[in-house]
């Protein structure tokens, strides 16, 4: 039976030794400590999935990417990439992957043009000689660099360098892409272009599997099918962006702005069984308007609020339901862990 997973980690563990300087006295003694970067990680990413990996700095995202692309050997456990073991079948793993590291310009030769740089990488990625030129031009076109193909790499902007890195990852036409923070350090427009490119060209049109690590929560929610949140080398949540948002959705908040509400009516609103808490918030209220943030027991209680306002003949000017953002979920979940 064919493996349904493009990437599967099996109790994957990586520990580093770190020396911590103790600045006491004239002689500085360094203590050695163990840091577990990836801690018994079990993660499955299905074929064709665009999977976002979120986590604070030092969570283990880059370590995981480096282990999957065989750059770092695991201490315990293993991972299967395209069905190949990252320890025992390294060459097959490398042939299945395109990896973009967080420092996009690494490995490029500054005094060569974009085309010549890709020509070198096409050779080391075994792109057949007779197809090499067409493939290079194809990936340059895909990332929108065909007009700058013969400009020197050192003249490229940050966004262009990152696009060329993406072109390099696509060059051998791998079924799986590991994109480690591909938009870090880029301006808003370049970041959006890269995201759109990943979503539309890389994933939707070609059916590739993408592991996309990022610090930016909204970026992940915009393009990823599923999101995993990594904290201290462990996966603390793994689901669709909506499902992750709902994980912290303990209370329902609505915001209303009303006109001509009397203090007695506010008293009566307080006593409504549907409402657990009311706070006044006049941010959007003008003139004789008053704004309130109502905390409800559940979303089903919303009609009872409308009923109350109707019965009391209170004019509703504005109504908003407050959804927890993925950022709220991220902060809450990483705090809990």
């Amino acid at each position, binding site marked *: 039976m064919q493996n349904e997973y493009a990437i599967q980690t099996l109790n994957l563990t*990586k520990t*580093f*030794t770190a020396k911590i300087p103790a600045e006491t006295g004239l002689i500085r003694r360094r203590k050695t400590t163990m840091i577990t*970067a990836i801690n018994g990680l079990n993660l499955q990413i299905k074929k064709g999935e665009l999977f976002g990996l979120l986590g604070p700095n030092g969570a283990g995202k880059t*370590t995981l990417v*480096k282990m999957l*692309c*065989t*750059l*770092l*050997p695991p201490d315990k456990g293993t991972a299967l990439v395209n069905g190949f073991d990252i320890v025992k079948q390294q*060459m097959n793993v*490398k*042939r299945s*992957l395109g*990896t973009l*590291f967080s*420092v996009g*310009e*690494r*490995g490029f030769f500054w005094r060569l043009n974009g085309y010549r740089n890709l020509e070198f*990488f096409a050779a*080391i*990625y*075994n792109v057949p000689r007779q197809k090499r030129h067409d493939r290079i031009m194809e990936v340059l076109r895909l990332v929108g660099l065909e007009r700058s193909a013969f400009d020197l790499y050192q003249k490229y902007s940050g966004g262009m360098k990152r696009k060329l890195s993406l072109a390099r990852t696509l060059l051998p036409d791998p079924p799986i892409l590991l994109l480690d923070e591909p938009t870090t350090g880029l301006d808003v427009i370049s970041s959006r272009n890269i995201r759109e490119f990943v979503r539309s060209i890389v994933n939707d049109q070609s059916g590739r599997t993408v592991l996309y690590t990022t610090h930016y929560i909204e970026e992940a929610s915009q393009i990823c099918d599923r999101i995993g949140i990594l904290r201290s080398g462990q996966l603390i949540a793994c689901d669709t962006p909506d499902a992750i948002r709902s994980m912290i959705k303990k209370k329902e908040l609505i915001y209303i702005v009303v006109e001509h509400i009397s203090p007695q009516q506010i008293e009566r609103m307080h006593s409504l069984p549907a409402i657990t808490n009311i706070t006044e918030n006049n941010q959007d209220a003008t003139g004789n308007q008053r704004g309130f943030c109502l905390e409800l027991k559940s979303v089903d209680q919303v009609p009872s609020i409308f009923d109350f306002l109707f019965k009391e003949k209170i004019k509703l000017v504005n109504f908003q339901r407050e959804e927890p953002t993925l950022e709220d979920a991220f902060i809450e979940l990483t705090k809990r862990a």
Partner: protein
Amino acid sequence: MRDELEKIYYFMKRDIISFSTYKTNILILVLTALFGALSFAYLGSSATSQSVLSMYNMNLTTYLIIGLAFSTYLNQALTLVQKTINPWALEEVLVSPTRLSTFIIGSSIWGFIWSTAVVVVYLVIGVVVFGVSLSVNVLGTMIVLALGIGTFLGFSMIGAGILILTKQGDPVTAFITIATSLFGNVLFPPQIMPPALQAISYIVPQYYFFTCIRLMLTGWTITMILPELLILALMCCIIVPLGYAIYAWCLKTARKNGTLSWF
């Protein structure tokens, strides 16, 4: 003005602190200076030791031109693998389906071609400007060059491997450079040194390389240098696989520790 001077001070302080963290490198610099001084002292002595040079059946100019040309060549070879271990490029190559041996050879090949061109320029200048007389044994020269390149590539791999671990300052390259200049028969014949130092010359491959290459360029035959050639071949056969194994081990260790890109 004072602010600018203070800035200069902090630039200097930053560099001194950074420099002082590379202890191996400091030791190497001190030793290189010390042994460099010794080499020039012996070079001065050799200028008056024509009787020793007559062993090689050539004048001092021919001796020095060949020594200088090929020491430049071998010193280039010695650092070739190191130059390829730019950490960023290294990681990009290591994640590609490329064998380590392909990476080493591929990264070094242009350096060898360039160095060969430089050697040719040296020799042409020697012949045209200084009237050096060469009678090249082509086959012998090719064999000696191949063995020399192999040996120094082996050293280069050992040095690069250690550099991957120490990040700056590899003692192997420094000691090989010192050994080449002092014991390698490059600028003066080791026979003018005291017997204890002469003995060191006979255990370094550079001595055999320079002896053989000089004789192959000045009309000797392979059979006449066979003992030295066989010793050089034996050393090459040991150093090349040893260098590869050390390089691969250091690379594996740096990967395991996650320090490959820490430079």
